[in-house]
């Protein structure tokens, strides 16, 4: 597997606003996953997008994938205080290990 690079490293927004974070990777993938980690807790799987998909939605989450640019974005709409967490992308090929970067630390200001 390869490590994705999340950007920005930190993001603070007002509750109700939208949050966008990006992920870049280096080599071809079959899929890309996004995870959330609340401080000191386990990772929560948010969404998986396959390489033949360009966009995917799940509730307030919208993920895009541009394989030509080797990048993905995660949009969280109408943010809530509970969205405060670190977000990680995990580019992958199959059922292999995941390699996590430093993530985007999102803070929602009430």
């Amino acid at each position, binding site marked *: 597997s390869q490590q994705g690079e999340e950007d920005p490293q930190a993001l603070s927004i007002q509750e109700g606003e939208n949050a966008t974070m990006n992920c870049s990777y280096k080599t071809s993938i079959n899929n890309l*996953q996004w995870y959330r*980690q609340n401080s000191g*807790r*386990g*990772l929560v799987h948010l969404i998986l997008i396959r390489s033949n998909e360009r966009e995917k939605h799940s509730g307030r989450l919208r993920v895009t994938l541009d394989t030509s640019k080797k990048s993905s974005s995660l949009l969280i709409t109408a943010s809530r205080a509970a969205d405060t967490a670190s977000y990680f992308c995990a580019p992958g090929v*199959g*059922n292999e*290990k*995941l390699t*996590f970067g430093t993530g985007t630390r999102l803070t929602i200001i009430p």
Partner: protein
Amino acid sequence: EPEVTQTPSHQVTQMGQEVILRCVPISNHLYFYWYRQILGQKVEFLVSFYNNEISEKSEIFDDQFSVERPDGSNFTLKIRSTKLEDSAMYFCASSGGRNEQFFGPGTRLTVL
């Protein structure tokens, strides 16, 4: 909704002691993983397990570590002789083969 569970939530041990961390993966999953996260650092892969054998392990996973699936439900990580630097959160994950990995809440291991 099915979830991965881990016990204990917190384990305190003396340096040199053996510890066993336990995980119950999601019941129909086939792929199992252990990761760890030292405080303030990235989540690191330790080992993956499929078809009753290790499929991949990292450099961290040396001879002091072992994994076992003793029955149809549990997946354990054993550290034979703990060191101070083994203090970390240990996460178990499982996958049903569609690439998504589902993580447990973690075991915080403190080695004194």
